[in-house]
């Protein structure tokens, strides 16, 4: 297992714990100096590579999201010419019924349709130093010259799935039909998921506003 994979496997790196981590840092911010960038908790910026930053990222509002999943099929209609939620770059279905950790004994008070109705969709963070880029053995993932989105060159990708394992947010997905990995392309700056959301719950947030948008979102999820 590569170093990156080991890191991915480390439970402390998983988003659930990341959330806990943030909560502590936000709660502690008044009394103690926070010695790290909060942004680094949400987007992987630990190993800056000099790769062009993305223009922004797609973020969902867990309060406005009603779980219709139009974003998933709009995503694959535009990018793949089919309806294929499993490979959608915005992930709603997997957290739709139950919280991200799966149904707990107390599922009725957790996130999701069987819980408190909070739908926590997940999206690509277009990390500053993306692990998907770093681990790709084919060097198939790079910054799109126009938007800076971390995009997978479909001609180069061999579908090995290392980016899938490396991503702390479980966003890239190997298309079982094309046998190639897929991830958010930002749709050339006009994400189809956001354009088609019937409650305006999906926004394309410019990079300089990403940090506060994510902090606010995590608070909403936490406070639920």
């Amino acid at each position, binding site marked *: 297992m590569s170093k990156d994979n080991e890191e991915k496997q480390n439970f402390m790196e998983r988003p659930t714990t990341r959330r806990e981590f943030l909560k502590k840092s936000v709660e502690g911010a008044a009394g103690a100096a926070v010695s790290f960038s909060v942004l680094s908790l949400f987007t992987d910026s630990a190993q800056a590579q000099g790769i062009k930053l993305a223009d922004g990222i797609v973020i969902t509002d867990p309060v406005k999201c009603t779980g219709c999943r139009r974003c998933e099929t709009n995503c694959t209609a535009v990018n793949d010419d*089919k309806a294929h939620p499993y490979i959608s770059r915005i992930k709603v279905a997997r957290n739709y019924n139950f919280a991200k950790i799966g149904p707990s004994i107390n599922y009725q008070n957790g996130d999701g349709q069987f819980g408190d109705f909070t739908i926590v969709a997940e999206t690509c963070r277009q990390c500053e130093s993306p692990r998907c880029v770093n681990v790709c053995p084919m060097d198939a993932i790079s910054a799109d010259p126009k938007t800076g989105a971390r995009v997978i060159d479909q001609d180069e990708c061999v579908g090995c799935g290392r980016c899938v394992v490396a991503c702390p947010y479980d966003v890239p997905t190997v298309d079982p039909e094309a046998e190639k990995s897929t991830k958010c392309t930002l749709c050339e700056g006009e994400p189809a998921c956001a354009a088609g959301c019937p409650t305006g719950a999906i926004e394309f947030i410019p990079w300089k506003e990403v940090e506060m948008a994510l902090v606010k979102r995590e608070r909403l999820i936490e406070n639920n």
Partner: protein
Amino acid sequence: MPKYKGWAGKILRVNLSTGNITTEDTEKYKEYIGGMGIGYKVMWDEVPADVGPFDEENKLIFAGGPLTGTGAPCTARTNITSLFPPNPENLVADSHMGGHFSPEMKYAGYDAIIIEGKASHPVWLRIEDDNVSLENASRLWGQGIFDTSADIAGMMGQEAQVAAIGQAGENQANLSTIMTNGNHSAGGHGGIMGAKKLKAIGIIGTGSVQYAADKEDWINLNEHVMSIIGANNQHVVPSTPQPWAEYHDSASRWTAQEGLYWGAADEEVETGVCPPEDTNKIGYRTMKAIKDLGSISEDYTVRMGGCQSCPVRCHSHLEVPELEEYGESRYVANTCMGFWNHYYVNPNYQTEKDGFLTKTLGAQLADNYGLWFNYGQLGRDLKYLYENNILRQVLPGEEYNDIPWDLYEKGDPAFLKDLYRRLAYQKGEISHLTDGAAKLADRWNLGEDYWNNSSVGLWSPMGYPVHHANESNAQVGSLINLIFNRDPMCHSHQNFLGSGLPIKLQKEIAAELWGSKDAIDVPANYTPMNKAKARFAKWSLVRNVLHDSMTVCNWMFPMATSPLKDRNYRGDTTIEAKYFSQATGMKVSEDELDEMGRRILTLHRALTVKQMGTVDMRNKHDQIVDWVYEMDPDKDPFEAGTIKMDREDMKKAKTMLYEELGWDSETGAPTAKTLDELGLSDVKKELASKKLLPSKA
């Protein structure tokens, strides 16, 4: 079926008696489209006429269609077909649920799942793409639907979509549901799963649904639909005056307005002004909670929700802390009758708050037990039987005295806790309330006074209540309510009639669609039957059947009207044919697709003829209870202010509808000629061998 797209291409067949799990090509069913069409074809081919609903030989078909899972708006309905236990003769019928189940089935690679046989012990069906297995459900048996769904998701992965029964289905209550996503239920078929000892189906699908159209054409068609879509039930004007709107109608479900909030959301969410062109606000248009639960509900509304792919969010999701005092979760979601059913069961509540708690507590309990209420009928039955002292006569004394009637009389929501437990576990004589009205009337010898009573609300001798029938455009709604073997669940006509547009404009559009403005009347100011009404009724039925086959939501389609002034409020009735063509690659016109709908409707009719063993549909099947003709004794039919129908006029109406559908004008049975025309020659042959073709045809 590599030649066509849209369909997944395979049907899964699971025999619970033998444990055999096989797949077959969907191609055989393509002329029947999917959903309801596949269901009827399987029932016709494979289930003999004398089988009972809980027999091993009965089958249960879960089906989507070529649109299911494509992401086209409002295409996540699941159609379930089987013999229908609440029907007095167990005639075939469909139940339907929204949610996310049938799209997942398509993504796993299946257009339909045919369940046959009967397991020897409780099982659940596990489907992960090509990996399909029957699993032991002994630990799940006896659990409610919520825990069952959670346990299965725990075993499969939280992304699993689950359809399950609760205790009511396990105990083979005729009025029981199959439920998915916690609040989407299909009524009437839960007991069939119970009899087969099938607790649940869990699905994870990682594949795609492909469509034949060019990417641009597909996206353009989706955008076109998003531009003409209205609010729930395709209501196209707002309920209050809005800056963008020329018209408004207080009955509209387009309730969004300034100052109306999702009041229990974690941040401020105002429904606000939602002009038609702002497609990023479609999901706020229908703030349904205030319609179903009154203005008190605003402060309890977390958000709206609903089915996969649908931008119109018609299910109210509420946080009601008071439910915890009754031992239930505070989070409850449903829509329409999912809440109103409980108002009928507990009608004596004293305060607005108790009314609200009655509906929300009732929904929570019923959705977990998997109880069905036959469109509010169960509660109206209870009220009639209690108030007329019939329960005191038919229930054993000890049982009668054990039921907390004091709570019922006070309208205390806690009454539901007691009653629903008895019903779900089928405890005591009272549990026969779930037999369905016709079977209940038979068991307890309920006579004329019960049947011919507009406040009891029964509409058909088959035991279903008034539901967009004579109150919905006289003969049109009435005809639609005659044809199926349960309440028709048809909204084709209702969506049009309830659009909210002024009657003059509605009449103009009616003339364009059905040949004359006389296709519709001013509400409760009816006119005698005419040809345009027959066309309107046929169109409504055919589209209803198409929608449940494709599958497309019949609460939103057909979109005969739109909210757009620049279209002069015209909708687009060609959408279904365009979607079918674009999805499958089979190019069909609007008329050709309607003919496919007529084929499916005619197959349904043939099934009814075969099961009843008579061609005399007119007199043996297509009947209405007397109050519909006898109500408002001081008024005549066609007088302003009554929805009373005229017997001779309805006879004529039946004849005209039969003729429109190509059925025998005397009996209402499909003719040999029509069966041949529709490619149903095998059906004709079988009916001929049973002497069930109308003689003059």
